[in-house]
């Protein structure tokens, strides 16, 4: 098992190298560069910029050089731990990404825990009380949850909060904590704001996972080992939790790997609607403005999280199911 983890970690740099080439190529794929969209934006705003100045900027940012040179310089800087400078913000990328990445990870983790904490019990309940009134109720709620786009839910909740309680529930911080340095009070403020986006982001996944757990558990409940446990005299709830549920949640754990990147990109619209200081809107802005170093760096971080997420889910699966052998993977 240790060997497996080491092997996978050793593989990570190679994967990142491939991801970096692909993401850089993708970002460069649209015609023009950062300056073209910069000029277009200025023009749209009614101002213009001197052609000579543009060429000077282009030379300064190295945008006039061949693409592989640009790529080489970016990767070279990354290897030295320098995430580069955002062309648009004229600030170091690390500064731009830093706190947003932390907040995104915190929010994602909370949504994931919320999803599991709600979905798995609902799935277990629905399976053990199949075709009961509550099972039907959960099924209906699940389908509504699946069918509701989460930004829609965000809008509805924001409206309800504003209309009924007179509170504005956007962002992750109260105004006085927005740019404050980290302190326990700020963490507390974050916690008092995070629940709404947590629910909004978690709901769709909840519905999905509850369905998966219900279906899997129904399969497992009819297996002879469940009946054998019952025949031993185990109380019903104890045997359900101990035996079939452990099998039934394996697919849930195995999706952990792509849950993170999915939530990062899926949460984008919600982040925009609720003006959450997460990384999604920053990436969107960077892509629209062809701010290539910023966009590339964010995408690379996503890829790394996806790979690490997959590794974590593989390890969890082995802990869950001794039949899985990592060495053969």
């Amino acid at each position, binding site marked *: 098992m240790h060997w497996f983890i080491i092997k996978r970690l050793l593989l990570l740099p190679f994967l990142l190298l491939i991801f970096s080439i692909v993401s850089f190529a993708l970002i460069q794929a649209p015609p023009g560069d950062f300056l073209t969209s910069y000029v277009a934006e200025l023009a749209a705003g009614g101002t213009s910029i001197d052609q000579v100045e543009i060429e000077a900027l282009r030379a300064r940012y190295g945008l006039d050089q061949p693409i592989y040179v640009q790529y080489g310089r970016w990767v070279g800087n990354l290897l030295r731990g320098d995430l580069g400078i955002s062309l648009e913000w004229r600030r170091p990328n690390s500064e731009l990404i830093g706190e947003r990445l932390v907040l995104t990870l915190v929010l994602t983790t909370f949504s994931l825990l919320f999803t599991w904490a709600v979905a798995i019990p609902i799935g277990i309940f629905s399976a053990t009380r199949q075709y009961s009134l509550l099972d039907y109720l959960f099924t209906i709620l699940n389908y509504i949850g699946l069918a509701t786009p989460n930004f829609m839910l965000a809008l509805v909740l924001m409206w309800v909060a504003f209309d009924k309680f007179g509170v504005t529930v956007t962002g992750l911080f109260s105004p006085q904590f927005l740019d404050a340095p980290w302190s326990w009070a700020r963490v507390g403020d974050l916690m008092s704001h995070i629940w709404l986006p947590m629910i909004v982001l978690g709901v769709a996944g909840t519905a999905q996972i509850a369905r998966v757990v219900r279906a899997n558990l129904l399969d497992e409940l009819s297996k*002879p080992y469940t*009946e*054998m446990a019952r*025949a031993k*005299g185990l109380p019903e709830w104890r045997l359900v939790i101990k*035996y079939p549920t452990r099998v039934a949640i394996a697919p849930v754990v195995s999706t952990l790997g792509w849950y993170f990147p999915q939530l990062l990109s899926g949460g984008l619209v919600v982040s925009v609607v609720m003006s959450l200081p997460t990384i999604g809107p920053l990436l969107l802005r960077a892509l629209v403005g062809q701010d290539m170093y910023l966009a590339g760096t964010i995408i690379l971080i996503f890829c790394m999280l996806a790979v690490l997420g997959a590794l974590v889910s593989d390890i969890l699966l082995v802990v869950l199911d001794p039949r899985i052998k990592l060495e053969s993977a």
Partner: protein
Amino acid sequence: MPQTPTATDGQTASVAGGALGAPERRAAPAARDGTPPLLSVRDLKTYFELDDGTVKAVDGVSFDVMPGEVLGIVGESGCGKSITMKSILRLVAKPGRIVGGQILYRPDPHGRAGGSGGEIDLTKLRKDGRRIRNIRGGEIALIPQEPMASFSPLHTIGEQIVEAIRLHQDVSKSEARAMAIERLREVGVPSPEQRVDAYSWQLSGGLRQRAIIAMALSCHPKLLVADEPTTAIDVTTQAQVLSLLRDLQAEHGSSIIFITHDLGVIAQVADRVVVMYLGRVMERGPVDDIFHAPKHPYTKALLRSVPSMDTEPRVALPTIEGSIPHPLHKPTGCPFHPRCPEAIPGLCDVKVPALRPKESEQPVACFLYHREVEGE
């Protein structure tokens, strides 16, 4: 597909052949000398309410299990033998339900079922209640059909045996583990100290079946319910498991209900036999009488369809005409009459024969022997 209990694969042929010649004689169990039966099933009815109608899986079954005896229940697939077993352990899942009858268990006064010497009607207990859970595994243990699937693949066999022990006995984890190793040794699992930490899928079929038996025996149950315990294993291992069961039963003095479709196995292990067809008892009696002097046409047909040493080679084995009717469309009258060569028109297709004579050693539900109608 309807299955007749013929030995189609030839595997059971030799077993059955030898057995048919002369079922092995064992010390007769404490017969009707006044000892009350350990378990009495009285007119048990377990029905399944489906959308298309009611399936009467078990429809008025009665038999006794005496202390220390092996009772064989034989019948084709779908005859209700497994549902009878599940009814005794109260494991019938929805939409199945016990709708009538009694299952009287006379518990060990010192056992955890907490009997005061009286009898408990298992059908009256709450399905998930504490009383039936104390009986399950503790007093009445199950030896299931599929040893492979009956252990959780995610837990070691030791963990699962220890769990069973600690459910019914007040011992520490390490004591329970020592007991689990002892049980494994007793059922002939080699190097049990290592095997106790194995997963079921790391064991061979025979070892898995032995481990399941070890788990069933772990709390010294008074009654073992073995549901086709040898169908999933090869014939050599099967013979070993059967002799193991018999030895253990003799040693512990427990009773066994042995459910199978295999007459050869019945001849090897059973003291008395219950022959079931479509949820009803057709005939029951001591194993010798059932094999040598069968009364019911169904029993006779079953025995004819088993190859024996005396069967002429390369001659088609007789089979029972027709196939088992659909459980939703049971025939009226005697359930066997459409396939019965001796059916009496106007009687067998109209009325249901009762299992008579009641006090006899070998009662039979057939109008060829009496005219007593069920329920009259």
